Structure formats: C-alpha cells, structure tokens
C-alpha cells in the first residue's frame, strides 16, 4: 500500500516544537559583545553548574513572564544573555575555519550581526514561552571540561522538552556554551548551516555577513 507522504522522518518529529527550538537556538546564539574569550577547558564542578543554571533560568523565566514585549523587557533579556552566554566562543565556533582567515574587521562585523540576528529572534519567540517552568535534573561531564545540565522545560499545552545546557568556565566565569535540545546541539547545527551557506557562496565570508544583516533587518 502506498502511504501518504510524510515530509519528515519519525525521529525528526521527535524534535522540539517551535518554541523550544527557537528559544534554544537563539539562547545559544544570542551573542552579545563579549570581547576576547579567555582560556578554555577548565573543569566545572557539577554543583556549581546546577546553581548557575537554576539562577539564570529563574531570571529568564521571570523576564519571560513579565508580559508583553517592551524595551525594558528586551534590556533585561539582553543583560542575562550577555552575562551568562559565552558569546564570542559560540560565534567563533559557528564560523568554524572561516574565523581564522577572517580579517579583524570581518570578525567584528560578523559578531555584531550575529548578536543582532539572535536577539531579534529571541525576542520574537519569547511570547510562546508564557507560563514556562523548568526542572533541573542530572549533570553529565563533558570531554571539554564543561558540564551538561539536564533540564525539562514544560509549557502549558505542550509536551515537555529535554534540554541540556552546557556550562563551561570562561576565564573564571561560568557561561552557557551550548544548548542541546532533544540530542541536537544548537551551535553545531548553526555551524553546519553556515558552512553549507559559505560552501555554496564561494566561501565568501562577506556574503554570509550580508545574509545575516538581511536577516537581522527582518527580510
């Protein structure tokens, strides 16, 4: 018998729905302007990682439930992201090998627009998170010295989502270095996307930057 088309494959269906996907994608990628990422690969004790995620998560939930979008809410959001996300680290990772060959001006340009795109996307999707709650579960050590903190996000009328927050030590401060949603690393996904875009656009970093600028302008 011939089944009616299913566009996606069953396992992709296990992927999170819009909200979590977008929030996680943007949370990781919401890159603020943190100049110079410091030394890496310091071990993070799991109790510290749990405290860090619990605190940041509670603050984020408070901002989300503040109500409608407003300049104040955006600022509060940006403050949390800038403080708790390893912005430059994520940006660098997503550019992969192209970071090395970029000029300092291109790097700066790229990080700026990266930040703009992600903050925009984050604020656009926050409304879907009204009423979100989270529970913090176990931690898993990672080979890079970081720790993945498992959480379950629950939103009204949605199936719960498993989200892992990778906590790393950047120059003595704990930061979120990646978000893993239902087994998919958001920063790896982003890097693959950029790599493919660059490959199809003559490995021209300026083309990527222009495309990101168009995205951040809302086109």
């Amino acid at each position: 018998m011939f089944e009616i088309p299913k566009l996606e494959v069953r396992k992709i269906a296990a992927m999170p729905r819009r909200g979590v996907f977008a929030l996680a994608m943007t949370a990781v990628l919401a890159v603020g302007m943190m100049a110079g990422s410091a030394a890496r690969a310091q071990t993070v004790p799991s109790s510290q990682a749990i405290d860090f995620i619990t605190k940041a998560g509670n603050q984020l939930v408070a901002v989300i439930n503040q109500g409608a979008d407003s300049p104040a809410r955006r600022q509060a959001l940006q403050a949390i992201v800038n403080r708790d996300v390893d912005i430059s680290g994520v940006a660098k990772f997503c550019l992969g090998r192209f970071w090395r060959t970029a000029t300092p001006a291109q790097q700066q340009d790229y990080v700026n627009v990266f930040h703009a795109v992600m903050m925009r996307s984050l604020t656009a999707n926050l409304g879907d998170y009204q009423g979100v709650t989270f529970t913090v579960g176990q931690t898993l050590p990672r080979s890079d010295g970081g720790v993945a903190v498992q959480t379950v996000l629950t939103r009204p009328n949605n199936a719960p989502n498993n989200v892992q927050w990778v906590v790393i030590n950047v120059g003595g401060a704990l930061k979120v270095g990646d978000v893993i949603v239902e087994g998919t690393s958001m920063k790896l996904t982003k890097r693959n996307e950029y790599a493919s875009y660059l490959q199809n656009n003559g490995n021209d970093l300026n083309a990527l930057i222009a495309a990101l600028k168009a995205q951040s302008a809302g086109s």
Partner: protein
Amino acid sequence: MPGEARRWFLPTLMSVLLAGAFFLTGCATKPTDPDDLAAYNEADDPAEPTNRVIYKINDTLDTYAMRPLAEGYRAITPQHLVREPIHRLLVNAESPVLFGNDLLQGKPRRAAATFWRFVVNSTLGLGGLFDVAAKAGVKAHDADFGETLALWGVPDGPFVELPVYGPSNPRDAIGRCVDFAMDPLTWIGNGAAYTDARWVRGGVTGLDQRERMLDTMDAIKKTSLDPYATIRSLYRQNRDSSIDALRGHDDP
C-alpha cells in the same frame, strides 16, 4: 493496481529511487583543499547535488500541499479532544513493529512494556485513544529498524534525501522498508475495504506527523540561511543521540 502489487509498491519505489540517487545522478566532486575536504567529510553528503534537487521537490510539495493540509487540520480540530487521541491511536497501531524491534534489539523489558501497553491501551484505552498505560507508569518509547540495524553495527552511511519522506540515510531508509513489512496491518485483510482503510491510515499518519512538525519547520525556514543543511544536521544529530541513548539503555 491489484492489492498484492500495491503492497510492494512503496518499498519497491523507495529502493528504486534510492538506487537512482546513488548511482545514476550527479555526485559532488571531492574538493582537494584540505579545509574544504574536511568540511566535505563532515557533511558526509556525496550525493548533495541530487539530494538538493529532491529536497526542492519535497519542499515545493510541502509548501503547496502538505503544509496547508496540516494547517487546515490544526485549524479545524481541537488539540486535546481530537488530535492527541488520533495521534495516540496511530502510535498504538504501530505497537507490533515496536515490539518486534524491541526484541531484535535485545531489550526484553522494553518488549514486555510494549506488549503490556498495547494490550492495556487497546482495551481500556479504547483502541489507543487514551494512553492508560502511561498513566499507570509504563511510558511510551520509540524503536525502529534503523536503530536496530545501528545496534547491530550497521553504519548509517551518507546522507540521503528521500523523495517525499525527507532526510534519511541508507540504513534508516532500509529500516523504514523493514518496519513497513513488519507491520501486520500491511498484510492483514483482503479487499477494497482493507485497502481503503490502509489509505486512510497512511493519510492520517502523514497529516498527524506534519501537523506536529508545523512549528519546528516554520522556525527552521525562518531562521536558517540554508534549511537543507540545517535539517541534514538536525536529522543526523537526533538519530545519533537516540542510538547512543539506546546503547546506554540497560535492559538485560
């Protein structure tokens, strides 16, 4: 098409298309630059030009047919009263395939859970409309033959975009065909009524799965500069992580 032929239509079609994708049409040229080569290997998508063509066709089909249908389905049916019970019904009907894979994966406890869930939900749960078993503490899990092959040591192979079905790889594509053949509902019954019922089940399954993907797919399209590459990456990571979880899953 006579019933017997129709049963084999889908698997045959898929194999032919799969073979076509591999052998008949364009493959990407391997880059010589070491950095480019590393990127090429990471993508593991030697048939990318062909895959992208298929993706484009799938995407067009989706934009003009599947997605609007799924949106309509969402618009006219209440989530808790209609869509979720229907989803549970479809999931329950797949229990025999799940059970078979649990056993083939050497997970007797999971197989027992699947069996028990099927019995309880088919009776007390009114054919699966209600997940009574989960309320009693026996939660649902997934299993498919692609995973089973992975546990047996079969590598996934390069990325493949299947016509209509979307992202896959040779291992998972074969897994799909085996799951289809393993399903008693593929074989039970003869005659027009059964054939119609199979069409309806297939149609509703497609609708259900697409509806559940609406938000995710919309988000990918909105945020990705290259949705094909994003979906390829997500598919592979998601499969790898569920297979890893399965490997770590202790079931004597």
